[in-house]
Structures are given as structure tokens and as C-alpha cells.
């Protein structure tokens, strides 16, 4: 088992490496280069040369990549083109905000979705199941901002329970911070819970069609007991995978939600950088997002190995 886990960790690191190459290549395929894009048409050749030297663009591509990557590994992501601020100092607090919001949403969404999914599997084919199916299908197909604005209209404008904009600042008390981010967290919950619930239901049901479950029924166990004691341990792996996938989606889906609620997270920073075409910031944000995404997926795979009852015994 330890070998499997080690393997998976190594694969995660390799993936991250490949992703960093990919991100770097993407920012290099621009016709011309960053310097001419920033300085624009009117730049003199001398100014271009100086600026290129300043950015290190006079070095060959692979050398720039190595410099960028070693810098990134030491926590040095360079400075922003537009305002010359140190990127890592801008990213760190915003990443914390984004992770806070995603974590808050996950804390509500995971127990809710998995619980309801199991409940739905127990009541398969009944009216409750069909109704839940229709509701979750609808929730999946709605755009993020639609749910967000509906919630704002009902919970922030009509009854004024929550603020429609989530303003947070440094050293804000926890309770206040939780209150401010409740509305975006509910929106995110609605977005990911539906998907997780559907997957939980279908993976429990697919285990239900195996012979050993039939055996459990035949020996007279009740449906609820069969699901919780017999089916769930084997259905856990796909559930964990889908939970992790959705957590990863949370961290990314947060981009649009942050824009709706004007929440100072990493997504906002990246969107701003894209509209200003500030390449180093985009690269850095992309790398950080990819890191979170790959780590979550790796973590999920390791958890899957850990919970699989068939891998528990030494062969």
C-alpha cells in the first residue's frame, strides 16, 4: 500500500511539472513577445531592448523557464508588469481568502450532498428520489451567477439577512468574516452539492447491483442496513473521487462567484490580470490554481487507496 501511495505522490509531482511547462509554453507562443505587447506599437527599438533585458527576455526560452521555475519554488514569482508589485505578496492573502471561502462552502456541501445522496439511494424510484433527481439536474445546469443573483434578490435585497457584497479585510474577526461570506458560500454549496449528490446516489446504486449485496438482502438485512454496512465501504472510492473533483471545482468555480460578490480572492486577481494582460501575474495565478487542483486530486487518490477495503490486507 505504501508503494502505491508513494507512486501516486510521484505522479502528482510529475503532473505539476508538466503543467508548469505547459503554462510557460502558453505564455511564450505570443507573436512577438511580452515586451512589445506591453510597450505597444510606438516603442523605440532601444526601449524594447532595455525592457527585454529587464524582463530577462534576451535569454533562451529554456533558461527563462528554469529561472522562472526555480524562482517559483523559492517563493519568488517575480513582479507584476503593471504596478511593479511583488507578486507573491499579492497572491498570498488572496489565496488565503479563496481557500477560506472554498473551505466554508465545502464544510456545508460535503455532509449535505453525501447524506442526501445516500438517502436518495435508499429511496430509489420513489417520489422523493424522482423529485430530488429533477432538482439536482436543474441545479447542475444553472449558471453560477444566476444562482448568485437569485440569492442576492431573496436574501440580501428582500429580507436583508446578508450583505450583497462580501467585504473582508485583514484581521477581521472570525464571526464577522463568516457572516460576510455566507451568501457566496451558500451559492457555491448549491453549485457543487447537486453534482456530488447525484454521483453518490449512482455509485451507491451501482454497488447495489452486485451479487454480494443480493446475498446480504437474502440473509434478511434491512435495506438501510445493507446500504450503510455493506454497500457504502465499496462505494466510498468513487464518492471520494467525485468529492475531490468538486472541491477542485470549488476552488476554480470561485472565480465567477468572487466577481459577483466582489470578494478579494485569487480569482479576482487573475481576472484583473487577464484584462490588463499582465503576463507574470497570470502565470503565477495559473500555477497556484493548478497546484491546488493537482494536490486535491492527488490527495483524493491517496484517500481512495486508504479506504479501499480490498487493499487493507497484505497479500
Amino acid at each position, binding site marked *: 500500500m505504501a508503494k502505491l501511495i508513494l507512486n501516486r505522490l510521484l505522479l502528482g509531482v510529475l*503532473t505539476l511539472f*508538466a*503543467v508548469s511547462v*505547459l*503554462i510557460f509554453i*502558453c*505564455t511564450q*507562443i*505570443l507573436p512577438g513577445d511580452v515586451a512589445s505587447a506591453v510597450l505597444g506599437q510606438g516603442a523605440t527599438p532601444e526601449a524594447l531592448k532595455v525592457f527585454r533585458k529587464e524582463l530577462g527576455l534576451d535569454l533562451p526560452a529554456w533558461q527563462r523557464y528554469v529561472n522562472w521555475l526555480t524562482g517559483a519554488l523559492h517563493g519568488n514569482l517575480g513582479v507584476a508588469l503593471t504596478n511593479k508589485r511583488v507578486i507573491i505578496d499579492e497572491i498570498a492573502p488572496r489565496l488565503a481568502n479563496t481557500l477560506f471561502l472554498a473551505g466554508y462552502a465545502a464544510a456545508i456541501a460535503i455532509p449535505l450532498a453525501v447524506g442526501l445522496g445516500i438517502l436518495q439511494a435508499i429511496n430509489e424510484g420513489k417520489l422523493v428520489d424522482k423529485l430530488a433527481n*429533477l432538482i439536482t*439536474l*436543474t441545479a*447542475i*445546469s*444553472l*449558471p*453560477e*451567477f*444566476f444562482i448568485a*443573483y*437569485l440569492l*442576492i*434578490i431573496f436574501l440580501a*435585497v*428582500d429580507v436583508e439577512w446578508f450583505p*450583497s457584497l462580501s467585504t473582508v479585510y485583514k484581521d477581521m474577526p472570525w464571526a464577522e468574516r463568516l457572516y460576510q461570506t455566507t451568501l457566496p458560500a451558500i451559492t457555491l454549496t448549491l453549485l457543487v452539492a447537486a453534482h456530488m449528490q447525484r454521483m453518490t446516489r449512482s455509485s451507491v446504486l451501482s454497488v447495489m*447491483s452486485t451479487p454480494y449485496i443480493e446475498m446480504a438482502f437474502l440473509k434478511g438485512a434491512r435495506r438501510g442496513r445493507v446500504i450503510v454496512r455493506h454497500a457504502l465501504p465499496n462505494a466510498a472510492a468513487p464518492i471520494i473521487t467525485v468529492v475531490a473533483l468538486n472541491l*477542485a*471545482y470549488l476552488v*476554480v468555480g470561485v*472565480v*465567477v462567484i468572487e*466577481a*459577483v460578490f466582489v470578494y478579494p480572492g485569487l480569482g479576482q486577481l*487573475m*481576472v484583473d*490580470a*487577464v*484584462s490588463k*494582460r*499582465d*503576463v507574470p501575474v*497570470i*502565470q503565477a*495565478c*495559473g500555477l497556484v*490554481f*493548478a497546484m491546488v*487542483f*493537482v494536490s486535491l*486530486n492527488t490527495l483524493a487518490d491517496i484517500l481512495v487507496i486508504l479506504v479501499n477495503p480490498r487493499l487493507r490486507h497484505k497479500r
Partner: protein
Amino acid sequence: MKVFGHKPTLSAWFGLVVMALFIFIAVFTPWLAPYGESQNVGGTWDEPSMAMLLGADQIGRDMLTRIMYGARMTIGVALAITLLSFLIGIVEGFVSAVVGGWVDVFFTRYVDVMLSIPGLIFALIILGVFGSSIPVLILTIAVLDSNRVFRLARALGMNLTVMEYVEAARLRGEGLWWIIRREILPNAWAPLVSEFGLRFCFNFLFIAGLSFLGLGIQPPYADLGGMVRENAAAINFGMMAPIYPATAIALLTVSVNLVVDWMLSIDARPSGAQAEL
């Protein structure tokens, strides 16, 4: 009444009717819309009236007209993306399945790496480097989306290449394209069509989301996501303006999903492999 030889459920009927309505509006917008695309006919966020059924937008254009043109634009772009993505994904997937060997390994690894970063982040990087224009949008999202199509097409192709009739075609000396076109594709239609519906929805939401962030389809073109963004401030005055275009998006995606759900439930009925379980 039957559609595709099956009787739709109630929710599928709803989906089919709404989809037909959207397609009709998207095709005939210039003749159906009450006003011009960028014609100012009222004040900022005018209340709905008989002249303007859904009121006016942030600079006094008729909301209904804008939604019609916006739907036309967003549906058109999403459709172009999905078609291109299926073209790339299916060719890659089937070639990978039929040829096998290092070609298969190459495509699979490439797709694995592409899918290890969230699509939105990837798209943002590309848009940040190239700037946002409709061709860049279509190409970027289609290439990103083709990775998902590849996975399905390869899986389908893998199941089909081991069939006797493909073997027979190979022994007859048929070429790669002939096998893909005449043996594999006809047998892979059903799952590909429902996947097309799902991918279309996803791309539709994706492009709407990008436009909502201000990085997708740029003004002066009307598009549904951008309209939500432009009218967003109205919400603070308790006005419904951004809800209308958002509802149009939601209505279309929900409908397509309802239809796809129904189509999948037809496929899922006991037939061959399913009955064995």
C-alpha cells in the same frame, strides 16, 4: 407523439419545446426582434411596459431585443465551439483507438496533462496572452473541450475495434479513414449525440461565464453572459434587470439537460451489456 422513435417524458417535452423555441428565435432574430440591436428606446432600467416587455437595459436599450440578439450570439458561438471540439476529439479518439501503439500513448498522455489543469484557468491564461476575440475564444475552448470528447470517443472506439466486423474490414485491406467512417462512427452515434448535448451546455455556460467576467464576447455585440454583467448594478436597487438574461441562459441549459437525461434513460434500458449486470 413520438420523437426519435420514443415517447418523451413530460420533462423531456418541456426541454424539447424550449429548445425548439430558442433555435427558432436564434435563427430569425432580425425579423422577430421588436427593435434594433443597439437602438436606444428608453431610459436606464425602465420598468417593463407594453412597448418594452422586459423593460430597458443599463443604457436604455430594449431588454427583450438584446436578449434575442444575445441568445443568437451565445448559442452560435457555443455551437461552433462544440462542433469543432467534437471534430477534434472524435478524430483523435478514434485514431487513437484504431491505430493504438505509441499514437495512443501520445494522445492519452497529452489529454491527461491538459485535463490536470481546470479548463477555466487554462482559458484565462490563453486569453490573457492573446487578448479576447471571437476566433480566439472558439479555438481555445474547442481545444480544451476536445479533451473530454477524446476520452469518450477513445473508450467507444476501443470497444468497437475489437468487433469482428472491424477485424474483417482490416483484413479486407480497408484504410484507417474508411474504418473510422464506415465501421466505428455509425455504431458510436447514440452516446456521442447525448454527449454533444452535455458538452454544448457546458460550453454555453463556459462562454457565458467568461463573458460575465468581461473576458468573453466583447461589446458592442450582445451576448447573454455580458448582459448579466452590464446590468449587474441594478440588483442593488432591487431591480430584476440582470435576472432576465441569466434566466434565458438557465432556461436553455436546463432544457438541453432534461432532453439529454431522457435520451440517456432510453440508452440505459436493458440491452446487451446492461442486462448482464
